[in-house]
């Protein structure tokens, strides 16, 4: 296991020292809500396999104000995650070329958002189309 650098006592409270550090924690924290949502879908999948009664109970739970509230929070977290993920995308990829010219970071981020819109619309049409 590769070990991150040792945490020193002088680092204590580092997130209080700069707004960017707090945004960093917020971004990392968004993954907890994404995980909660993934586990919720997993519960739905398991109840679907268990049968109609279990699945309908899972579906009815969405009307519970607490469940609804957590979904709204997860939606905000997912949007924040998407914004930060696409913004960092150019840093995580090697320089891409198209016809001998380097694709600029701006183009890459725009391309990611276009893909996001296309996939969002596609998934909605597919799921609602398959359902109706």
């Amino acid at each position, binding site marked *: *296991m590769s070990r991150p650098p040792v*945490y020193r006592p002088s680092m204590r409270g580092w997130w209080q020292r700069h707004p960017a550090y707090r945004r960093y924690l917020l971004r990392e924290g968004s993954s907890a809500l994404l995980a909660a*949502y993934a586990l919720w879908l*997993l519960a739905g999948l398991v109840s679907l396999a268990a049968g109609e009664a279990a*699945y309908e109970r899972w579906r009815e739970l*969405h*009307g519970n104000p607490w469940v609804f509230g957590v979904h709204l929070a997860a939606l905000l977290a997912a949007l924040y995650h998407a914004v930060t993920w696409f913004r960092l995308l150019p840093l995580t990829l090697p320089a891409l070329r198209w016809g001998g010219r380097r694709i600029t970071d701006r183009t890459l981020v725009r391309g990611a958002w276009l893909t996001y819109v296309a996939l*969002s619309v596609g998934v909605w049409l597919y799921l609602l189309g398959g359902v109706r």
Partner: protein
Amino acid sequence: MKRSHEPPLWLLFGAGGLLAALLGPALILLTGVVVPVAAERGVEVLGYEATRELLARPLVGVLLALSLGVVLWHAAHRIYHTLRDLGMRAGQGVWWACYGSAAIGTLVAIGAVIALW
């Protein structure tokens, strides 16, 4: 020096992060907001028969299970490293709790999908 197994972990993390960014908001809006709001108006969205028929298609089911898996993996990676950033003495135990639960979640998802066939 011991070889690091961080690169494959990071690839799974990256796949989960990309997927969550591309599809997360649309899916949460659909299953978490549209389903209950429609139900209140007497409209059934993602009903049992249709959803079962949809997810019993091997390609759709397996893709969903693997997607859930990589998103769980993504979260496990971020949570583990953030706990360390916050000064927690996270050793092997926490490592296994994070990544192990993501792996178990993936296996459960695959099992549930296979049970639909």
